[in-house]
């Protein structure tokens, strides 16, 4: 009966292809998505409005910063939901032996390589985070790289080894701090007389112009995103890999 599921797949696929004949030409500069005043506004004014050379960052963190704030909240929710669902569920089925709880000595070559690599990964994460304004990168990417470095620790030794450096309460605190940083910057700009997330108003507290205020605020919110993504990445790994028991290696 599995073939039945092909029917909706083909139907939706056919529908999507059917519409494609009506698409604007590939790369057509006259197509609405390229020629609309909205896109041209982004292309022409990003540098003027925000002093940020990377247009993608400006659209992501400033023009549509409200979306990005809630994307960060989604990451936070994912972590909180997984912790909430798995918390205590390990104890309920405690009698069963888990394969991954077999004690094993960490491998010498692996641990020493990881010891060398982790600092490099973490520095690179900071670079990706901070360099988001001028090159591809930003909070999400930097946060993922940073979170991966902690996961690598847990893989090379075991979960406890990584949890000493990044415990679960610490994860929640850092993730919440990320949201507070992002939302707080938006809230501060509202208190200073603008709309929510109107970074330009931050010129009243920063010794810079309105455009540079937007520039610096974007870095601030990217750091907030980085906080949340880093800690939630690791919290997800720690919970899922140990079914919420938070011990043992994979």
């Amino acid at each position: 009966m599995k073939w039945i599921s092909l029917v909706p797949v083909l139907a939706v696929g056919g529908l999507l292809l059917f519409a494609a004949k009506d698409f604007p030409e590939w790369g057509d500069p006259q197509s609405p998505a390229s020629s609309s005043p909205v896109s041209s506004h982004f292309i022409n004014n990003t540098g003027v409005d925000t002093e940020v050379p990377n247009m993608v960052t400006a659209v992501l963190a400033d023009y549509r910063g409200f979306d990005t704030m809630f994307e960060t909240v989604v990451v936070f929710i994912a972590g909180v939901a997984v912790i909430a669902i798995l918390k205590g569920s390990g104890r309920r089925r405690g009698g069963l032996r888990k394969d991954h709880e077999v004690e094993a000595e960490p491998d010498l070559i692996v641990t020493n390589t990881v010891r060398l690599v982790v600092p490099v990964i973490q520095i690179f994460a900071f670079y990706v985070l901070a360099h988001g304004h001028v090159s591809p990168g930003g909070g999400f990417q930097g946060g993922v790289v940073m979170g991966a470095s902690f996961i690598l620790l847990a893989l090379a030794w075991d979960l406890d080894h990584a949890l000493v450096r990044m415990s679960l309460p610490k994860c929640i605190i850092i993730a919440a701090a990320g949201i507070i940083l992002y939302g707080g910057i938006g809230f501060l700009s509202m208190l200073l007389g603008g709309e929510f997330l109107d970074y330009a108003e931050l010129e009243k507290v920063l010794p810079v112009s309105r455009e540079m205020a937007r520039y610096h605020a974007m870095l601030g919110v990217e750091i907030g995103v980085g906080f949340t993504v880093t800690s939630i990445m690791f919290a997800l790994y720690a919970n899922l890999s140990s079914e919420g028991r938070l011990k043992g290696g994979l």
Partner: protein
Amino acid sequence: MDNAIAWIFIFPLFGAVACALLGMVNRKFCNPIAVLSMAGATWAGVETLLQAVASPQAEVSYILGGWTLDLFPRGVGIEFRADLLGGLIALVVLGVGFIVSIYSKLPVERETPNKESLFYTLFLLQITGLAGIALTGDAFNLYVLIEVAALTGYGLIAIGSNRAAAATFNYLILGTIGASLYLLGVGYVYIKTGTLNMVGIQEVIMANHLMDSATMQVAFVLIGLGILIKMAFFPFHAWLPNAYCNAPSTTSSLLAPLVTKVMIYVMIRMVLTVFGVEFSFESTLWAKFMPWLVVVAIICAAVMALAQREIKKMLAYLIVAEVGYMVGGVWIYNYYGLIGSIFHIISDACMTLCLFLGAGIILRKCKTTHFDGLRGLFAKMPLTMIGFFIGGFSIIGLPPTCGFFSKWYLITGGMVSHRWEYLVVLMFSTMVMVVLFFRLIERIHLAVSESGKNLGKGHGELGLTKEQTKFDEAPLSMLIPLLLAASIVLIIGIYNQDVVDQIERFLEPLNLPKGTKD
């Protein structure tokens, strides 16, 4: 205050973060934080709605990030727009959230011990998402907020038990499919129009005559299908009953009144504001067969509700039937039908809230919500039962509850547009609901045993011992929210004209047909 609309999401968002942090210090902080932030948000919701009512354009427009609206089509930056429809729905979301936050104190302690801080974090973010959906004026931002509401919903349901977690998995798969279809549709709209602002999209459709464009037609189908899955419209309802019935009682009292209703709001918003009346009703195939799907949906859901022997499950199928009413009210393409739909969103949220709050109390006191465990409940908890039955009477549609008036407009819409099939199924499902609730009343009041045998020896005799019928009312923190919800059902019913006036003010400029189409 100019920023009232921003406070609507600031309160629950920061409240949620505060719950996550302070909840680690002491989990007793969580409930007061939730109640306070919901009180603040509700105040902001009232303020926003009053501003919208007072303003000459009947809307409050708020551009996040301080960008401009002057361009054509608008769309730089994200707009929050509380017109009378969005403002009303947002206020319903916040009001329900406030009532449930008061109610939640005891059930959360009992049903999800040691997880209070995580629970309230998800709870407040759920309300942030739902209220945001009602207010946002940007099609992509709507998607992000749908994700916020959906993910918190999965967490809130699965937090309860392993069975709930299994039910959530179905919900997760179907919800993700629905959201993905919506996102694909938004992508198609963007490639044709070059903007994501809802009003902007309609301006482009009008200016460039995109009514017959295949891309827009497919986008409409994808968005519509995605939303139908999300709102548990009949063939896609499979996720709802198990999820709501196994969820902790706080969760089901929050999600059941809001999630499906907010999704119907999204459908109305897409039809009226994004694609426009002309496009949605006159250039699509969709509009031709939707009224017939509604007929099937209402009949099936009502019959399935009739087959249930458990209060929460029965209520879950009632929600599916009610979804059919509201979708039908939109697609019969009539002014009165739409008034009915919008008003029914509001009244259905209030009455479903009543019923689920009541069911939660019954579950707490009787340890079961199966029909067989209900005998003598009225003697035990008269106030709870009064609240519960006001909700039930409103579902049936007895005056002066709000359910009567919203159903009145739906029926008027069906009559003036000569949609007799819609009228017939509305009547049929009303009859089913009469049977459902009077069967419950019978179970509770009369001495009918599980096997249907009469145990009573005379009038008022339940065949129960004194202890079993001793006055044992629900704790005040649960009873007061229930009675509050019940009185709101009555108040909206009595002052229905004021609500309808605002809905009419919203619908008036759209030139919907007031009689048959031809």
